[in-house]
């Protein structure tokens, strides 16, 4: 019952915020074409551009856009931290760069190779270089938020375990305990084996809950949520790199033996031309790559589809308002369906990432038999 309510509230939240944004954008276009022109980041063309609209919602950003009201974008400014060869370390709030302004020689590029990235320009507006950028972007903020959230939740759960020693779980503890046990027993123990699973379980629990939380937050369009963290290839790349490094570091003799001297393969496939070792080594690199792409693609695709359904309303609305109104119930129904599907995908992808990592760890720590 509680879950259904949660679903509905997710969906409603998505509806409300997305529509607000879209309506606001439309008003901007109608009333203030000049502004739209100058604010090319939002709208380059006349009319509603679903591609830009969708892309705007799933990409990383230098500020955290909350909503737009009568052409005014309300956004939380976030710190921009840059290192350039000419100026050294420079730091300022992202709102200095709003509306295509140049600040201290930095501007957000509107086109070219570095579109939507901060570049350094000279006094004539000519491109100098792209600074090393470690800004606290929208995604970084979301990551930090989820880190604090996870630490708060699980440290308090750990404390209740300490306090309620030998007693049955209660409250949040009993909500999370089955999930923790599921990861420990059905993911770690069954994929890695009785002997080594304890070493990897903490990492598997961490990635599972990190991915799950960010998948779910990605579905909530209200402030702490709404950032497309797990649908960002950099984030999934970092997660896959963690899995890759742990696999590589903990890989034992059997693991490397299977790669460079695969047992059960004729010697002529290994010796003059190391064909099998090459394929195996390639497989080692492919595994984290697949992990990275799968999570990124699944989460991004879900977001793109949901946003696509909303775009339909405004594509038809631009033709005639009656058509837009007629399409909107269908769009909303599809969006509700997609959001529920996304909720499922959020769990499935977190699980898949975790179990695949566990299987790779299992390969790395498998003993000779």
């Amino acid at each position, binding site marked *: 019952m509680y879950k259904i309510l949660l679903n509905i509230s997710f969906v409603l939240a998505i509806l409300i915020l997305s529509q607000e944004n879209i309506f606001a954008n439309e008003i901007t276009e109608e009333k203030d074409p000049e502004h739209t022109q100058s604010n090319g980041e939002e709208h380059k063309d006349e009319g509603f551009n679903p591609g830009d609209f969708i892309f705007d919602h799933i990409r990383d950003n230098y500020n955290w856009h909350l909503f737009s009201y009568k052409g005014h974008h309300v956004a939380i400014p976030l710190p921009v931290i840059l290192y350039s060869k000419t100026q050294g370390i420079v730091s300022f709030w992202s709102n200095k760069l709003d509306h295509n302004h140049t600040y201290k020689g930095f501007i957000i590029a509107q086109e070219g190779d570095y579109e939507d990235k901060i570049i350094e320009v000279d006094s004539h507006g000519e491109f100098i270089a792209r600074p090393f950028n470690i800004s606290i972007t929208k995604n970084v903020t979301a990551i930090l938020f989820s880190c604090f959230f996870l*630490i708060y939740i699980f440290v308090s759960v*750990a404390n209740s375990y300490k306090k309620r020693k030998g007693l049955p779980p209660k409250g949040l503890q009993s909500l999370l305990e089955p999930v923790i046990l599921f990861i420990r027993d059905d993911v770690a123990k069954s994929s890695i084996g009785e002997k080594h699973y304890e070493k990897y379980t903490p990492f598997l629990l961490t990635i599972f809950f990190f991915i799950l939380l960010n998948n779910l937050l990605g579905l909530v369009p209200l402030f702490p949520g709404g950032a497309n963290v797990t649908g960002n290839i*950099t*984030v999934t790349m970092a997660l896959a790199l963690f899995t890759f490094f742990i696999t590589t570091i903990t890989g034992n003799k059997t693991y490397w033996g299977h790669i460079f001297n695969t047992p059960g393969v004729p010697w002529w496939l290994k010796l003059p031309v190391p064909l099998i070792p090459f394929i195996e080594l390639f497989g080692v690199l492919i595994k984290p790559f697949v992990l990275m792409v799968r999570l990124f693609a699944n989460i991004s695709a879900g977001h793109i589809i949901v946003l696509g359904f909303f775009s339909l309303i405004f594509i038809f609305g631009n033709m005639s308002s009656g058509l837009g109104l007629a399409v909107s119930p269908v769009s909303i129904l599809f969006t509700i369906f997609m959001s529920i599907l996304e909720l499922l995908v959020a769990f499935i992808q977190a699980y898949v990432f975790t179990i695949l990592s566990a299987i790779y760890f299992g390969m790395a720590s498998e003993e000779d038999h």
Partner: protein
Amino acid sequence: MELIKPDIGLLFWMIVSFSILLYVLIKFAWKPILNALKDRERSISKSLLAAQRAKDEMAKIEFGNEKITQLAKIEKQNILKEAKELKNKIIEEARENAKLEAKKIVEEARQSVEHEKNQAINEIKNQIAALSVDIAEKIIKQKLGKESKQKELIDDLVKDIDLN
């Protein structure tokens, strides 16, 4: 294209914050949680084992009790049987004894009766003898009362005597 191009800055922050997250969660959350879960599982399995053992013990005791009852029953039956046998034996013996005794008594009675009878017969004999003597005496007295008669008799007797 930006969608699939990794960003160095974000990668940097992601790796830093995720490393910190990993460290903090492992140290302050997962270790205590997993240890607590393990302890609890251990204590549960221990208690289950203990319960099983207690159950086995109970079953054993119950089985023992049953066996004891069974044995007691058998013992009771044996005792009863023995008692019955003993009773029968005693009765039999008593009967035998009584028979013997009765026989003996009857025998004794018979002997004493015989004896009494013999005695009585002897007495009767004696009395008859005495009576006969008396009668004979009286007869003789009568017959030999007169002198002639005595003479006659003597004569008879003398006649019979042969002097050679």
